[in-house]
Structures are given as C-alpha cells and as structure tokens.
C-alpha cells in the first residue's frame, strides 16, 4: 500500500469513529470529557473483535509451528 492509501484508509476509519462518537453523545450532556470518553469506548468496542481475532490467529500460527 502506498502512503497516500494508508492515510486515506486511516482517515476513513477516524471519520467513522467520530460519527459513531457524535451519535453516542447526541443525547448526553455536551462537553469534551464526555465526547472523549465515548470516543475511547467506541474504540474499545471496535478493538474487541480485532484483538480476539489477533489472539486466535496467533494461537493458530503457534500451534502450526
């Protein structure tokens, strides 16, 4: 992947997380702390399947070796 493609992909993912964060904080009280907390929580929820897949793949490759 070229550098511009990596940048574009990261930008899309960040915009996606920001949209989800805004959606999550739409009915909560406004404030940077609430926004950042929700942002981190969205990232964590998104990270769970990624971490799980990574761990399963790592175990699989370890077993194959």
């Amino acid at each position, binding site marked *: 992947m070229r550098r511009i493609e990596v940048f574009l*992909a990261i930008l*899309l*993912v960040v915009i*996606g*997380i920001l949209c*989800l964060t805004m*959606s999550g904080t*739409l009915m909560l009280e406004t404030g940077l702390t609430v926004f950042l907390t929700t942002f981190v929580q969205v990232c964590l929820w998104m990270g769970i399947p990624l971490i799980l897949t990574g761990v399963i793949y790592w175990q699989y490759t370890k077993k194959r070796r």
Partner: protein
Amino acid sequence: MKGNSIVVKLGSSILLLVLVILLPLGFVVNQIFSGFYFSKVQEEVEEASDRYANSIDSLDEQQLELFELLASVTEQEIIIVDEQGIVVANSGIPSLPVGEGIRSEDLAVMANNADIRSEYYDDINNRRYLQVGKPIYSDDEQLIGGIFVLSSVEDLYQSLELVKRAIILAGIGAVFLAVGFTFILSRKLSSPLLEMEQATRKIAAGDLNTRVSRSSMDEIGTLAAAINDLAIELHRYRSNRREFLANISHELQTPITYLEGYTSALRNHLYETEEEKEQYLQIIQLEAVRMSNLVSDLFELSKMEDGKIALVFEEVDLVEVIENALLKTKMNAQAKGLQLEFNQPYDFPSINADGLRMEQIISNLLENAIRYTESGFVKVKLFSDITTVKVLVEDTGIGIPQEDIPFLFERFYRVEKSRSREFGGTGLGLAIVKQLVELQGGAITVESQIEKGTCFELAFPIIRRESP
C-alpha cells in the same frame, strides 16, 4: 485505481453488504424505540380513561369542574361530551371548545359502546395527542356521553426524531468504518494477485527466472507456488528443447560427415586396393544404419510421447520374454567374455502387457549392461509379491555417478560427456524404455555405484484372476 479492479469490486460488495444490513437494522431499531414509548403512553392513557369513565355517572356541573381540575394536576387533558357529541368540559384542547361537536364517526363508535383509540392533531396549538375515548353510562346503564383522555406525544416525537438522527449518524459512521477497513483488506488481498500478474507477464515475455514470493499457505500461496512451478517447468522445457536440437544436429552431423567423406573418396578413387574400397563401403553402410536407427528411435519416441503408439495388451509370461531377450544378446556377451545369468523361477505370475515391447525393454537394458561392462556378469532376476512383479537387470559394469541418475531417462542424455561416443548407441534407448514401461502401467528405477555396477528395476502389476 481502475474502475473494474478487485479493490473497487470488493469494496463495493462489502459496502453494499453493510448497507443491506444497516438500513433494515436502523429501521427496526427505530420501530422498537417508537413502539416502546408509544405503548407506554397508550397504556397510561388507557388506564386513566378507564378509571375516569368508571368514576363519572352524570354530567352535572360539579363533576365536570372536578374533572377539569383533575386534568390540570396531571399531564393529560380531559374532554367530556354529552350523548349528542357536544363538548361539555375541556381541560385545555384549543380546537375543541365547550359547545363544539366531535367528529361524527367518533360519536358513531361511541354509540356502539366501543372505545376510541386514535391520534388527534390540534391545528390551533399544532400539537399531536394520543387519545382514548370511552362511553359514560348512568347508574341505570344508559349512555349519557363520553370521556376523552388525551396525552401530548409532541415531546415523544421530538425524542424519537433525535433517536432517528443518532441512528442515521451511527449508520454513516459504520459505513465510513466499513469503507476504511474494506479498503485496507482489499488492498492486502489484491497486492499478491497484482504481483503474480506482473510475474506471469514477465514469464510470458521470456524472463523465466522470475519467481513470485509465497507469503501465505492459503489459496493465494498455492497459486504463487503453481506459477513458480510453471516458470521452472517452462525453463526446463526451453533448456530441453535447446539441448535436444543441439544433440540431434550433432548426432546427425557425425554420420553425414562420414557418408560425405567416404562417398567423396570412392567417387574420386582415393583408395589403393579393392579391400580398402570394401572397407569404405562397409563404413558407409554402418553409418547409414546408425542414422536410420537414430531416426526410427526418434520417430518411435515421438509417437510414444504423443500417445500414438498402439500397444497390444495380452497375458505375458515374463520368463519367456527374458529368455528370448537373453538369446538375442548372448552373442554380444560372449564376445566380451561376460557371463549371462538368469534365475528362472517356477510358476511365475503373468502380467498384462505387450509381449514384443516387453522384449524390447529387456533387450535394451541387457544391451546397455553388456555395453558398459568389461568383466564380470550380467544378471537378470525375477521376483514377485502379492501385487507386483519385479525384474532386476544387474551388471558389474562401470556404474553411473549419482548426479547423473535423475537425468538418465532423458533424451540424448549420456553419462560419458565426450562427443566421441566410445560406447555407441543413439542416446535414446533409456528414454524409449521408460516411455514403454510407463505406457504399460509399470515403473522403472535405477541404483548404481561407480566401478561396482548398476541395477535397473522394473515393476509391473500382476493380473488378478477372478476366482470361479
């Protein structure tokens, strides 16, 4: 990036899939929220209207004032109508003042002793209400009017609108995430394919040393391995073709040179005696025979490789075949002082093969063994187990170096690298033997040690006889 590239196709497919899932999911989530809040409000209004309808038994002024007061302390509005549908009490709905009539269809429903459940829009204060109307009965069970309990759902609609916006925003966010991850994924998936495309184009252009890196063991990895194998095979094929053309030119050139030289000598009378002339003619004949053998061997090999050779399969007794082959080669062996041995077994199983071709195989191996053996013996052994018969042709000859064994059955491959052809032969014998063995369902292997000897092993499946 091209419009029909795999990245675009994969990206569009996954995006479509995300939308196919997200849109109905968003609709269902919205319905769940709306249903939940509406049913809650309706339940409250229903309960209140039931209670009020049961507690009112007349439409006197005191009761009406009491209900108007009751409505002012709750968040619900109350409208009471008489049996003609004329409003007699109103706690705060501007479009239905006292003295105004309700809709005739509502009155008809009420006259049938049924409840009214509907949404009411007040066009004066522009508010939406959820209304439940119940008929009022006097003590003697006579219909005296109806009571409507209305609860404003304007706030509810606003909240639901906010929820809808939040769902749409979350959906857009999910689409962005999907596009971002799909882009990375499709790039990762397509990059090895692009590498393979470039490599195959290079191979097609003639750069047969090009190889594809195999980064995984999945289908893409096996495809890369297949491309590498193809490149290796093409490289081998090209080298073989080049070598074959060089070999055939050389093999044909030698007898032609002899023929040219000796015919020129005869034509120009460059001999001194008749004996010398006879010797020249014999050389010409031998070279012509050699050339003829070479051409017929080449023709036969070519037919075998194209699958055009017709084999006559029959039940073949290998003992008889070997005896015939030994008879043919006996003179050559005796001329070199070699001992020919054959362990003749009794009741040996038959095989399904072409008898003449089998004899050709054994004769060829025996001739080779005699040619490369100076002293000692050439031995033929026969063995069998449950499924196969084995023929061993063993000699005490000069042997074959280990590095030459894998190429032994290739056309024109010679262990003696010099062009002098000290031992004779066309260089096609073993290639023909291998082809013939394989065409008859057998296998040939070789073991050899330098200065100790060589052993060729032929294996053929036994004919299974059906028991009666």
